[in-house]
């Protein structure tokens, strides 16, 4: 237990995310995607073209075959490899966007042996910016940004409030979940659902859903069962 240099009055655990954690997150997410393929596709069938589940699953299956050869690489390289693999296997809108997430995470976390909460918040913020740059969507457009942006905001707030590691991740997952649900009433302004105009309202965005799973899987696989401040 150390005294945080930034918040000198507060003690906190230096709970960090190891390379194994990162690998575990990615593998678990691949499993979550596989289990939810039909669900994501159903969502996409309603306001898109019924492929988001298959696209993501194809991509993360490919990632799983790539991972074994990456296990002795560093976190950044692993994340970039995931990004490149998604880029060449997912296709559609999801491909470049999820690829961007992992490439940006990899870029931001260059040379890190371990990631702390602040690193993670920074990296996820960079990923969010990357997605917004690539896709030109802003919050409220009914896209994955609507899950990503609140997750980043919640993480940063948790950092400011000096919440525990687990709590911070949990908050970001809850925020992503709320962001995902908040896409339901929205009229899409970006992506394929935007072709529907008003008819896109009343449906949950598939990309926001898979992004919520991503954040939620991080919270779950990285949880240290440590609720101390």
């Amino acid at each position: 237990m150390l005294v945080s240099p930034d918040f000198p009055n507060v003690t906190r655990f230096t709970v960090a995310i190891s390379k194994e954690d990162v690998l575990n997150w990615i593998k678990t997410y691949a499993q979550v995607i596989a289990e939810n393929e039909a669900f994501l596709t159903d969502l996409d069938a309603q306001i898109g073209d019924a492929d988001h589940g298959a696209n993501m699953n194809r991509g993360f299956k490919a990632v799983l075959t790539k991972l074994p050869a990456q296990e002795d690489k560093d976190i950044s390289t692993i994340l970039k490899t995931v990004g490149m693999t998604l880029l060449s296997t997912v296709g559609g809108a999801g491909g470049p966007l999820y690829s961007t997430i992992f490439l940006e995470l990899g870029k931001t976390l260059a040379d890190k042996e371990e990631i702390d909460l602040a690193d993670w918040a920074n990296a996820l913020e960079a990923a969010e910016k990357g997605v917004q740059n690539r896709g030109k969507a802003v919050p409220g457009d009914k896209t994955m940004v609507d899950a990503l942006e609140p997750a980043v905001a919640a993480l940063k707030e948790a950092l400011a409030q000096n919440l525990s590691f687990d709590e911070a991740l949990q908050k970001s997952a809850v925020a992503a979940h709320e962001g995902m649900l908040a896409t339901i009433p929205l009229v899409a302004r970006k992506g394929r659902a935007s072709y529907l105009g008003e008819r896109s309202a009343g449906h949950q965005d598939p990309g926001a859903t898979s992004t919520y799973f991503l954040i939620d899987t991080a919270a779950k696989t990285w949880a240290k069962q440590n609720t101390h401040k």
Partner: protein
Amino acid sequence: MKKLINKPEDVVLEELQGIELAHPDLVKVHYDPNFIYRADAPVKGKVAIVSGGGSGHEPMHGGYVGKGMLDAACPGAVFTSPTPDQVLEATKTVDGGAGVLHIVKNYTGDIMNFEMAADLARGEGIEVEAVVVNDDVAVEDSLYTAGRRGVGLTVLMEKIVGAAAEEGRSLKECADLARKVNSQGRSMGMALTSCTVPHVGKPTFDLPEDEMEIGIGIHGEPGRTRMKIQPADKITELLLKPIVEDLPFKAGDEVLLFVNSMGGTPLIELYIVYRKAFKLLEEMGIKVVRNLIGPYITSLEMAGASITLLKMDEELKKLWDAPVLTPGMRWGI
């Protein structure tokens, strides 16, 4: 799901193998990354035309590779845009030194993947221009949305710009011509039944026995409105009117009238629609000078049809009539 397929995940691969075996004189197939390219590529000194998109729209795009049309086509998974590495490799393979034009349908995924590929290709010293097709009047256009989908006009653009490239026009000229085609063409489609994406195994949407979807997208995306099935003449009107009013097409205009099957609608019905569309245009003083009737840009086995109108002039007529030799479109050779 009633399909002549083996495993859903093998559909695109096996289709490519079929194309490769069927048309070795016209095209070659590259696997992993997947693309179809002209058997004689690269054609030295000719601008290369590359397109692509999700599979499930056959014969588009792979069927349009060959002399007088595309130099390469990049097929994604069913209804999923291709990945940048496919487009990059295809671009490098067919570049004949005069630059490469990407014809991209306006879908977020297609745009992003093609853009990334273009950036990478430019990084490797290839001159690349991209033109986006967005002809679907079913979609409300706005600066604040993804805009309109690219649909039927893509086929006409690929033919016309392909002929221009064959003629020896420069990359800039080909790109300008593609933009001109885009600016003069409009489309709209409808569905009587849903398609079934192989890996999904059930119809994308439910359409009751007495209903149809007007303004459907080519990936089974829902359209403008759902309504009771109408007679073909009425449906033709429902498709044609928004098309004509959007550009607008005017009395005295010469047009190419393209009546397309979404896949499951047979030719006999297309001629019934063609007949009515022709007559409606005639009443408006719009003259059909060229036409195309058949399943040219499909949505798997979806029943339904789309209409595309392209305003023609002497240049476009000449390029349309120019010889073309591809698996899916052929004349003059």
